[in-house]
């Protein structure tokens, strides 16, 4: 169910500005972009391929 907040205190412009973190945005962007360079990515694809092959052979 939706929550209704009445006369809520929101952070001010100064506080919001203090929380700006463009370096974090760039870091997350690079992590997203480079996920295929991660060995785990190939590891999971490899494992899935082996499992599928074994499954097909066993049928």
């Amino acid at each position, binding site marked *: 169910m939706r929550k209704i*907040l009445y006369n*809520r205190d*929101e952070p001010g412009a100064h506080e*919001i500005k203090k929380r700006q973190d463009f370096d974090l*945005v*760039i870091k*997350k962007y690079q992590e997203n972009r480079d996920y295929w360079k991660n060995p785990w990515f190939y590891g999971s694809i490899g494992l899935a391929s082996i499992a599928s092959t074994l499954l097909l052979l066993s049928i």
Partner: protein
Amino acid sequence: MSSPSLYHQSDTRIQSELRIIEKSKKNPNHFAPLYKQYHENIFRYIVKRVDDVESAYDITSNVFVKALTNIHKYEFRGVPFSSWLFRIAKSELYQSFRDKKARRTVSIDKVIVADIFEEFEESCNEERKEKLMIALRSINEKDLALIELRYFERRSYREIGEIISVTENNAKVKTFRALQRLKKVYNK
């Protein structure tokens, strides 16, 4: 507090943004001025719709990551860059509700309540205010989103149209119908 309109931009500003976007497609670090310019507006759009301020900061950050990831797809076709960002914000927001990372919240204040009752052509009292809160909990998500954009944040129909991907006239019709449905639920 209503969100400042980002819609009415001069040609010079639009051209300057387009130059930054083109440079950002080659090097994401060039995106910094757009991040600084729109961070507060995107954050305010999100924080009004989630119950936790920290989640709002996280979702805002994800909006800009998504924008950078997809910036190569952005082409100027009369739609301001800010509207493109708001579309991403809307999508990230609903994703966070689906992932249960944030709870759907409606932020309302006495000025908004007074405006809504003016639209209803009724005076406001505690009992009616309580009835309005119940109605806001009950209406469908699409209607609520339109009412928030128009009556809570005072955005123009043109801007609403850009955010929800419909024409200005269609946005006006849809918003009017959404308000009628809210009134109907309120009067039940």
